[in-house]
């Protein structure tokens, strides 16, 4: 199976590998996939008081396409508002990395990871705002 240059670049030089403090109020964490399926992605976003994603980190257990998809979305979400980040679609990820059909599920997982991180952040802040 031949992979695109962009995909190989993200695999070989993954962007934003690492972890943010999941207990930080400004951090939203998404953990999606399952070890038994061969893919697990952890995507974390750090959101500024203005509602802008100022940092993103990932860790992924999976094939090269899964690693590249998660690396790519950390780049894409940075600088976006939560609403903007939520509009990222798996088809855009798959197209950018030229994922072969058998790997489309990796891009779906990356989209799910963004949504999960956003909803984790919103859940933290939903309760915080209610308390105010």
């Amino acid at each position, binding site marked *: 199976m031949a992979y695109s240059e962009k995909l190989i670049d993200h695999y070989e030089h993954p962007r934003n590998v690492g972890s943010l403090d999941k207990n930080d109020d400004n951090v939203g964490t998404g953990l999606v996939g*399952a*070890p038994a*399926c*061969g893919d697990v992605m952890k995507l974390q976003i750090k959101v500024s008081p203005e509602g802008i994603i100022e940092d993103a980190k990932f860790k*992924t257990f999976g*094939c090269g396409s899964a690693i590249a998809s998660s690396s790519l979305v950390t780049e894409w979400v940075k600088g976006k508002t939560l609403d903007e980040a939520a509009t990222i679609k798996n088809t855009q990820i798959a197209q950018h990395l030229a994922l072969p059909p058998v790997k489309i599920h990796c891009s779906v997982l990356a989209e799910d990871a963004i949504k999960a991180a956003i909803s984790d952040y919103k859940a933290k802040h939903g309760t915080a705002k209610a308390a105010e």
Partner: protein
Amino acid sequence: MTTISETNAAPRKNDGSNLPKRPIYLDYQATTPTDPRVVEAMMPYFFEKFGNPHSRNHEHGWEAEEAVEKARLQVAEVIAADEREIVFTSGATESNNLAIAGVARFYKDKRNHIITLQTEHKCVLDTCRHLEMEGFTVTYLPVKKDGLVDLDVLKNAITDKTVLVSVMGANNEIGVIQPLAAIGEMCRARGVLFHTDCAQAYGKIPLDVNAMKIDLMSISGHKIYGPKGIGALYVRRKPRIRLVPLIHGGGQERGFRSGTLPTPLCVGLGAAAEICKKEMVAETKKLTALRDRFYKSVTDRLPEVFLNGDFENRLPGNLNISFAYVEGEGLMMGIKDLSVSSGSACTSASLEPSYVLRALGVSEELAHTSLRVGFGRFTTEDEVDYAADRIVEAVQKLRAMSPLWEMAQEGIDISKIKWAAH
């Protein structure tokens, strides 16, 4: 020989100073290069001695026939068989089809039950599935954690209706060697025919069809440094085993397999068999040393590495290892200059992890992290050391970016998390 060591065995120093090099081949259970000595033996039979070995009336036919019969003897001698018991086929897949379907269909009025293992090669399992559709009953026995058949379980599975037991000699994924002599003994005592798929075992470990009471044995050319496209089926003559052929025609190969024999391929299989027989002891010693060197090098440096399949009863050139928390295909992408294979889902279209590993009770998580590393005749110590270094580096890098490794380090029990299957 010099060409092989020059092109294939040079150690790769990853300094980028040299021209692009071919990856190091560590997938000898998938296929083997044809030994240059084998190629040399085959060459005259393409142009000079191109005759049809079944032409009985002229010199061209006779010299081809002589070559084919010599090859038949060479193939037979590796397993202490009579050359008249060797049927040439296109490969082990055809041999397995012919043996299992051929026996089942011939004896179907008397007995209609077949026993095999869940870890057999797909061509055995798929043949059995087709026979089920024809009305045969098939028992797919589980194996123990070490990949070996439980002889008591096999014994209890045999009934008065059992016509055939088919158990492989050595497994293609995990290399474990089944107790063929004990199985043969058991089958003979019950009047059941015993077939063994020895595509991986033939020429690698000592095999004796009489001592092991084997009635049918499948043999492959390209797993033993012979050419692709040729194999053989050993079919016992005393007592005589009958088969319904798969391929009909001129009645060649005692009627078991019609079609003109491919003289150069037969010669190649024979030459490859003879080399295996002659060099088996030395090769086993060499491969065992290389394999153990590799395994020690990797396990000394990496924690949480698990060997799949029994270590003792194992092909000398095979390792199948799970690197926990690192997905197999992701790992393979990081070691592109090594040609190895993975039991992970992602390498196949099915997205299911290896059914062989699952049959051993290896969890799906660990099955996804497995790598098969195969050593062979042209593997060098330098290649093994280089491969071990690269694998250790890649696993360390990927573990550093694995959320599962991070959780394990934090003491989180991954099996307790409610994962959403996708």
